[in-house]
């Protein structure tokens, strides 16, 4: 099954989803397609002019452009997902490389779709990691 992972660039979630036999929907694969086919020639931007319009499908015009740009790339992944794993409080999803408003909107869009969703916290110690991995394993094995 196609599993949307949040954060969509997480190494931990990507590997776990693949390890338990599903297809992770990640932002890296989308970027790979864009780099190879669309010739993104405006570094450091990863979006095209069409994406700016596409972002409006997921967020209103008054929403900051950074959020709309992210959602233009992540939104179609949520649309294609058959299930989702949301890992909250990942240390890199807030700050210079993250955007908390986007995270909130992504959670909202995933819940709105009504697909099977697992919500877990980013592990900071062994006990949390143990719980997190066991929950991910049970969730992925339980999907048909």
């Amino acid at each position, binding site marked *: 099954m196609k599993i949307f992972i949040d954060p969509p660039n997480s190494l931990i979630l990507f590997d776990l989803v693949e390890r338990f036999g599903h297809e992770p929907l990640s932002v890296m694969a989308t970027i*790979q397609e864009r*780099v190879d086919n669309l010739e993104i020639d405006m570094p450091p931007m990863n979006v095209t002019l069409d994406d700016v319009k596409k972002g409006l499908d997921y967020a209103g015009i008054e929403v900051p452009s950074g959020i709309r740009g992210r959602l233009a790339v992540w939104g179609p992944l949520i649309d294609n997902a058959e299930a989702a794993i949301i890992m909250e409080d990942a240390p890199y999803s807030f700050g210079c*490389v993250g955007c908390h408003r986007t995270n909130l909107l992504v959670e909202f869009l995933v819940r709105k779709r009504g697909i099977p969703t697992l919500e877990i916290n980013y*592990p900071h110690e062994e006990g949390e990691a143990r719980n997190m*991995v*066991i929950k991910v394993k049970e969730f992925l094995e339980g999907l048909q």
Partner: protein
Amino acid sequence: MKRETRLIVISPLSEITPDQITRAVYAMGHEVTVKETCYGALLEGPPETVKEVMDDLKKMDPLGIYSKIRGFPLGDPNRCRAQHGSRPGFSQLQREWQDLALVEKGLQCALRGEEAEEDDDRAPMPVKELQRICEEVE
């Protein structure tokens, strides 16, 4: 031809070295490109071959080798530090690399068939607890 680029990241607990990874890939004799890095290696080639190589590599240390796709190809001028690439990203990878030690231990527990402990941090707050906090604030 379609390409797939993969980051191969070795858990801090693993005894495998990046050098062993690259040598193993060369020894397999597939038409892929591999580049040794501080955290593991970068692997690039046709998607089917990359998958085959990854499956074989993971056999070296099933719980110690992790991977994910990388959007940019090897040596991409927009990304490569050697050419002053403009995209930061190592801070995230560094953090996740450190935490792979935790994930590895979690995987050991999961594969032993252990069950998750109930965490009650998502349970609704009892009214009395809320009342106590309100009184403290007042």
